């Protein structure tokens, strides 16, 4: 066979590098390294860190926010953002508290929390897809609206007196030190991980985030996908509201204030491109773990949370800036 024929019949390989080498170079492996480092530093610096019950308590630092971060990750990969998630928690929690006076049982309360969350998400979805509003401002609006409604209902009062069985979601243990919230988060993480990386739906999210026009031109129903993503985020916020309300045992309108920015930080730290198009659920879960452990470790060292936020803020900027600087330096 001549060289010409060789070129003609040459086969393009599926992949050049093995999947393993891809994993090793990934953002996620960097996060694993950070997580391990944080874990070691923490165990060395405080004797209380490696206590099973302390560690179990520490998981509350990230489970509720992590639940929302899973859905937020999909929204951000699709090129949108949802700043109203904490507002949804407030409204869903208020709705559950309001229902208490009608002697609604635990199942009913959960149903109310989830459906209010889903409705809020649907509302965001309508604003963004049907009315075509930019999600960043539309959800700043709904953030105020949702929390505002909660203030209208509650004012400076609070709802208390949730049924005892309701406490399980935020305070219950499934097995030994393993909390219900941790199990829920793990289960949801697996679900979202599969949804994003193993299904057609997940693939279309990436396509939309990389190029919404080309995705539309490839026959993807872009608006419908975005609508589902906002709905999912609302639903997960409702779920987080159930957990948080159950853990606190009360509802105030100021519940979960500022969470939207913490959740977005978690997502970006997890390697999700804020401009959309790339990132994985594994990264988000690892980022949640890192943030949770750092918070816990700093707490053990009596370093206030607000100082920890400096650390998280720096981390957020550094993790994005360093690869850019590195590429520039390497280029010359």
């Amino acid at each position: 066979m001549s060289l010409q024929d060789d070129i003609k019949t040459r086969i393009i390989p599926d992949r050049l590098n093995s999947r393993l080498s891809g994993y090793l170079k990934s953002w996620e492996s960097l996060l694993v390294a950070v997580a391990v480092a944080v874990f070691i530093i923490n165990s060395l610096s405080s004797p209380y860190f490696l206590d099973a019950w302390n560690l179990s308590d520490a998981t509350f630092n990230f489970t509720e926010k992590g639940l929302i971060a899973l859905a937020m990750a999909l929204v951000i990969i699709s090129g949108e953002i949802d700043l109203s998630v904490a507002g949804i928690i407030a409204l869903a929690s208020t709705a559950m508290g309001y229902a208490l006076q009608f002697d609604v049982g635990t199942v009913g309360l959960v149903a109310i929390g989830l459906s209010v969350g889903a409705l809020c998400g649907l509302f965001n979805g309508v604003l963004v897809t049907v009315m075509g509003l930019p999600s960043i401002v539309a959800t700043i609006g709904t953030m105020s609206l949702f929390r505002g409604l909660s203030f209208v209902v509650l004012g400076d009062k609070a709802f208390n007196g949730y049924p005892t069985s309701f406490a399980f979601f935020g305070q219950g243990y499934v097995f030994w030190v393993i909390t219900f919230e941790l199990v829920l988060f793990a289960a949801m993480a697996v679900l979202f991980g599969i949804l994003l990386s193993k299904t057609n739906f997940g693939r279309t999210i990436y396509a939309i985030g990389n190029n919404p026009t080309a995705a539309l031109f490839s026959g993807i129903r872009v608006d419908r996908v975005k609508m589902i993503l906002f709905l999912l985020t609302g639903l997960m916020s409702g779920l987080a509201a159930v957990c948080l309300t159950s853990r606190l045992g009360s509802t105030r309108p100021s519940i979960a204030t500022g969470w939207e920015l913490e959740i977005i930080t978690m997502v970006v730290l997890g390697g999700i491109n804020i401009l959309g198009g790339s990132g994985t659920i594994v990264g988000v879960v690892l980022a949640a773990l890192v943030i949770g452990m750092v918070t816990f470790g700093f707490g053990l060292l009596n370093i206030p949370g607000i100082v920890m936020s400096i650390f998280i803020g720096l981390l957020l900027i550094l993790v994005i800036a360093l690869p850019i600087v590195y590429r520039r330096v390497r280029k010359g």
Partner: protein
Amino acid sequence: MKRILLSREIMLAFAIVLLTGGIALRFPGFIAPNNIALVFNDTSILIILALGQMAVILTRCIDLSMASNLALSGMVVAMINAAFPGVPIPALIGLAIIVGTILGAVNGLLVWKLDIPPIVVTLGTLTIYRGLIFVISDGAWVNSHEMSAAFKALPRSVIAGLPVLSWVAIATIGLAFFAIRRLPLGRSLYAVGGDPHAAVYTGIDVGKTRFMAFSIAGGLSGLAGYLWVSRYAVSYVDIAGGFELSIIAACVIGGVSIAGGIGSVGGAVLGALFLGVINNALPVINVSPFWQMAISGTAIIVAVALNVRSERTKGRIILKRAEAAV
């Protein structure tokens, strides 16, 4: 023609007049001159900040760190005042502006030199600046009795019937009008946000213009920092927490397009005033002030929906009859 040019502002002004008029029907006291002055004074800080945010949004960026910047600059001058009551107030104001400008410039540099999305940069600096307040103050409050009398008195002292705070806002509005209209930089903001690609053709440095916008927003946050801590006579870690979103809300209600290139000084001021009127009107008309947040949320959504409608492109105009109709 002029009417089209001003329509967004006129609509908003009309809404505000209608709102105040409606309130005045039942509570005539609301439109008494001194009450109107009170509302304006109460909104002054928001106006100053909204003007800074407008400069940033015009260039297709966003600054989430303004409220943290305000709180940090405010804390710096409050602590200096508490420790060295002898430092003259103008020097402290100057310092607040310088600190704010530097904090804003940090945002601008990261956006300009490293091309990091503005929302990420300012989300990071939002928490960093807020945390730095704790670091420098060790979580302690600077209370009224620790501040010098002159420090607290300035924003409240009345000149020609209005408190200095209001005059500062008026001066800022005047400066903003002037800068947007008369400085080449002011016009560049529109070009950079309207079409960054085309701006390059005209020789405008897109990154540098954005840097300038962030620095200006920072400087105004610093100024607002002094005004805030002196007016409320207290400084602590959490002051103006969550205010960053009210600032953006004021801009959006005022017709500043989040996509950049569209917006006016008048619009941003009216947007801030709209929120101010609502805040102040609720107690007057015996509605629980807890309605405030829901109302401003609704106002934002309605405003954005109106902006999007007017900005929507209706396809290329190819047919001659369609062009004639425009």
